[in-house]
């Protein structure tokens, strides 16, 4: 069984999460998106949690995204 969750956290925390937690899988493309994301921003990270945690998408929480999703 796999559960899909969404976490919203600071860029630096997401960077540390993928660096420190060895049970996280993430494509090279998403790793680059995370490592290149501006520090001090909020990232919306979609994950699949099974035995491992797989990051499936990453978005910067911009004003536009917030306006769209907070309706």
């Amino acid at each position, binding site marked *: 069984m796999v559960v899909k969750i*969404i*976490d*919203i*956290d*600071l860029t*630096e*925390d997401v*960077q*540390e999460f993928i660096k420190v937690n060895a049970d996280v899988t993430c494509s090279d493309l998403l790793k680059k998106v995370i490592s290149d994301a501006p*520090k*001090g921003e*909020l990232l*919306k990270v979609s994950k699949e949690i099974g035995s491992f945690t797989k990051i499936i998408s990453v978005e910067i*929480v911009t*004003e536009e995204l*917030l*306006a769209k*999703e*907070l*309706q």
Partner: protein
Amino acid sequence: MLKNFSDSVVRTKYTSRILCDKYFTDWLLASEPTIKLSSFKKLMFIKSSSAEHKGTHNIMLDFDVKELLSKKAMNENYLRASFKEETYIHDSVKEVLPPEAHPDDEFCNRIFYAIWLANKTPYSCHIFTSPEQKEIYDKNQHLKGLTSVRVKTGAEALDKIDEFWKTYTLDKARYAFQNL
């Protein structure tokens, strides 16, 4: 406010915890879009950047979360990014009050939880609510004479969010300057 700079992330010691009720959330959701968006964004940053209570700085009790989600008041991801859901009936709260003293009243439950939060650093908690609920909190005997728990309604709560936001942005600027 004291500052704490870790190796790579700006962390801020805020002067009080935040306990938000469903009435404040409804009030904020009905506010002007710019105020609504900026305030929720600031709350997310405060929750994520707290030096002492990272991820749990801003609290919303389970019965408030449940009601907001049941009526689909807002996107769950952003509600949870703004506030950590906590269960009221918690062993730690029982340290403050014996089980038989726990009333079946949502306002008392929030106040007791806020008192319990104020038993930990930074020893202060603000309850955010809507202007319409001010009188109910003001009349509650458990808040009489308390200085560690204060109620902020509507615009007062926004001022407190702005105060915390300014502290965070100042820390962030200082951190960037020190790491040039």
